[in-house]
């Protein structure tokens, strides 16, 4: 019992400290300290039981004495929940430390109580979401989570863009919840109770289970950001304060993945097309996500599209695992689910780091525009180097953590090539090809982002006058960078530690999982050993260089100085020109709008180029759809009189109609 009690204590502590922060919002420093310290202590408290259970302690159930409507108030801390909890607690604790410094710059303009209150509420509700074992309790926590993050997205509410982003997010979140509500009602009607335990123990026909899976994919996929449902993501992430973007992108969207996995445990043995569906979604989200990221000019928006990409990678892993289950291929299932689950943890780590880095850049320069930056590595060395670690990790390059999880998914799909037959084969091969394409494009994208922001010469006065962030923000970024390196270098041990969580999802004994992991373990050990040798060599060379240069004069000069008499920053490649060959190649998908006024004559006076890439789903699908819905609803304007009497009449007539209908 101690584990889950610690967990509940941590939730209580965080919510209580958030409330106190709200009450003392008159004193911004006190409110900030209160909110931050509460979250950090709460996360520390919660991390202990989560790690214990993740590493193999038995699952625990807490049944509270008061009852929810339609069921009991039950919490369960099992290996699956604890995996997500480790990600939530680690990232949120660090984000709180970061936020304590980050929000200080808003102190003059804005009360700091509310953002801390909603931040703590967000963290607490995420913990409840992944531990709740009753549909009603789950939905309540889910809704609190959506609302708390909505208020954080609209933190800078005088900004028109933030406001619009907030509304987009709110609408998307509620449409998603509507699907979840339908799903839970179907499950509840079939099992006669709203408890997850009863969902799991019933047997249902495949058609019913498939309907539930589709509802879950749409409902949870909206939160997670599967490709056609992702439209809120690139709006909301840039609008929120950076530590909140890190939490939202790093862990909040993962609650969608958690929900999907939890639902899969209710549904019994999967037919093959479920796996193929998830693989398809993963391919679309992964490839298109990274392509749209390539075309962005806004650093945080670019990162938001990368979240879509990484959710795609996770979906590829889960799809491979599901296909493995239905083909009864243990290696496919174990490696697919293992890779997907580990990528959840890894993405929390590196995407959290990257968003915090983007926040530090925004903090230092006051801008998110890639083409206004440059040369920041000299001015913001801590931010720059930690950002580089995150960028390498997200591209899936060894020896960092992204490589470990992507390797598992690769291996799962490669094993699958041997098991899959006929129509399944193209998609299984598609996983391998898609992952390779995603990895390549991601490397291109982060070369662009890192190059444009940190290398070269400053492109604007803001970038030239930028300043490094303080100790708290550095600490958070350093710890996350260390986490990326640690998971990468300890890869052979980490993948074995995933066994209990895989057991919950795939329902296999942990011995066979460990046996399956033996192969990948060897590969990873070899890669890690080679990486360590490489790192040691590089370190040795650096020491050698320093030794060689010890007695000599070393002078440094501007970048791109090679012989130009009057070098200017505008001679550099811009972010968009760097990405242009790729965006041109994929122009069919991207539909970039270009406004070009080319230079004319021999002595051109002025020329300009503006490119702008809208979200195709948003422009081509959602905007027309909502416009026609709006038009239809405006036909009903005559219902609104502004007369209280008529409104009461509407209510009375509705009640009467319902009464008569029930009596029939």
């Amino acid at each position, binding site marked *: 019992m101690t584990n889950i009690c610690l967990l509940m204590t941590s939730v209580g502590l965080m919510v209580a400290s958030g409330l106190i922060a709200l009450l003392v919002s008159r004193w911004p420093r006190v409110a900030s300290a209160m909110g931050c310290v509460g979250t950090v202590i709460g996360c520390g408290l919660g991390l202990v039981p989560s790690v214990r259970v993740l590493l193999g302690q038995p699952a625990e159930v807490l049944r509270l004495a008061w009852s929810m409507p339609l069921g009991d108030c039950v919490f369960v801390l099992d290996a699956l929940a604890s995996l997500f909890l480790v990600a939530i607690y680690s990232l949120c604790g660090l984000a709180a430390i970061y936020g304590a410094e980050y929000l200080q710059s808003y102190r003059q303009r804005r009360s700091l109580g509310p953002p801390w209150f909603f931040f703590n509420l967000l963290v607490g509700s995420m913990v409840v979401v992944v531990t709740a074992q009753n549909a009603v309790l789950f939905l309540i926590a889910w809704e609190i989570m959506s609302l708390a993050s909505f208020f954080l997205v609209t933190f800078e509410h005088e900004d028109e863009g933030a406001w619009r982003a907030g509304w987009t997010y709110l609408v998307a979140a509620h449409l998603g919840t509507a699907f979840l509500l339908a799903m839970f009602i179907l499950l509840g009607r079939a099992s006669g109770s709203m408890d997850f335990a009863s969902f799991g123990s019933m047997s249902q026909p495949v058609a019913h289970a498939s309907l539930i899976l589709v509802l879950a994919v749409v409902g949870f996929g909206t939160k997670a950001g599967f490709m056609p449902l992702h439209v809120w993501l690139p709006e909301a992430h840039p609008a929120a304060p950076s530590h909140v973007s890190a939490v939202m992108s790093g862990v909040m969207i993962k609650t969608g993945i958690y929900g999907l996995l939890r639902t899969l445990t209710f549904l019994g043995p999967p037919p093959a097309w479920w796996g193929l569906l998830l693989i398809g979604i993963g391919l679309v989200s992964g490839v298109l996500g990274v392509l749209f990221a390539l075309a962005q000019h806004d650093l945080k928006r670019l990162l938001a599209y990368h979240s879509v990409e990484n959710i795609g990678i996770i979906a590829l892993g889960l799809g491979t695992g599901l296909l493995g289950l239905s083909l009864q291929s243990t290696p496919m299932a174990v490696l697919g689910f293992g890779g997907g689950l580990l990528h959840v943890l890894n993405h929390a780590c590196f995407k959290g780091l990257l968003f915090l880095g983007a926040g530090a850049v925004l903090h230092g320069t006051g801008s998110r525009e890639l083409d206004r930056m440059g040369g920041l590595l000299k001015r913001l060395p801590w931010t720059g180097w930690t950002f580089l670690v995150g960028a390498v990790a997200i591209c899936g390059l060894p020896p960092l953590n992204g490589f470990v999880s992507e390797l598992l998914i690769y291996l799962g799909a490669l094993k699958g090539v041997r098991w899959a037959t006929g129509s399944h084969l193209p998609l299984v091969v598609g996983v391998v090809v898609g992952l390779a394409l995603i990895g390549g494009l991601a490397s291109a994208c982060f070369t662009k982002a890192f190059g444009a922001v940190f290398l070269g010469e400053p492109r604007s006065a803001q970038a030239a006058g930028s300043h490094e962030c303080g100790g708290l923000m550095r600490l958070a970024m350093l710890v996350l960078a260390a986490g990326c390196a640690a998971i990468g270098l300890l890869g052979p041990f980490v993948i074995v530690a995933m066994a209990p969580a895989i057991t919950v999802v795939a329902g296999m004994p942990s011995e066979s999982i460990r046996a399956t992991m033996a192969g990948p373990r060897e590969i990873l050990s070899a890669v890690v050993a080679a990486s360590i040798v490489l790192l040691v060599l590089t370190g040795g060379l650096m020491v050698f260089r320093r030794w060689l240069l010890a007695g000599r004069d070393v002078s440094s000069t501007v970048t791109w100085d090679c012989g130009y008499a009057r070098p200017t920053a505008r001679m550099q490649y811009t972010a968009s020109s760097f990405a242009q060959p790729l965006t041109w190649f994929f122009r069919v998908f991207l539909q970039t709008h270009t406004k070009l006024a080319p230079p004319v004559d021999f002595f051109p006076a002025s020329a300009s180029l503006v490119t702008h890439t809208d979200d195709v789903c948003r422009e081509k699908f959602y905007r027309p759809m909502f416009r026609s819905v709006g038009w239809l609803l405006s036909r009903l304007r005559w219902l*609104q*009189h*502004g*007369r*209280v*009497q*008529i409104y*009461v*009449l509407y209510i*009375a007539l509705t009640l009467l109609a319902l*009464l008569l209908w029930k*009596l029939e």
Partner: protein
Amino acid sequence: MQVWTDVILITVVLTNLALTGLSSLGTCIRVMALQGVLLGLITIGVQREQLSLHVLVLVAGTVAIKGFVFPRLLKRAIREAAIRQEVEPFVGFASSLLIGSLALPFAIWLTGRLPHLDAGVSPLLVPTAFHAILIGLLLIVSRRKAVTQVLGYLALENGIFVFGVGLARQATFLVEMGILLDVFVAVFVMGIAIFHISREFDHIDTDQLSQLKE
């Protein structure tokens, strides 16, 4: 005992009908007060066992609040907001009365259709409750002034009260205290709202509040 309960219930129905047909605000409030006192008596009528202390306290509370405190508050609201002593209906008095009378057979029919509604005390209890609720809704919908809407709200609450008295015999005390508190708050809120609306806009026609739409 049941005869007297029936007589009281029928009187409640009559007071409800009177509310739909009366044109003077002052009389309406007096009828409302009478209805409050009658409700207190019903509480005694439906008791099967000995009268206990809590029932007596409840009766006293009901009569005091519904019979005296509310009417006084409403009168004061009228006086302070300087409202004309007319009801000003959207639906005429004769039509209101007709609708009110038709509501009675509807309420009886509805009671017949409802499953397992055994009031035990009197077959008239549930129809009376429904009738009061319908009349309350009618008053809210068809009258122009905020004060008359308060009256409609009171009638509706009285209906729920009758319902509660008859059916929730185990938890009577809790239910009724809850309702009393509810109405008390409602009257206070609406009283204050009326006062403030009349002070800000110089009238309390909810009709003209429709200018505030959007």
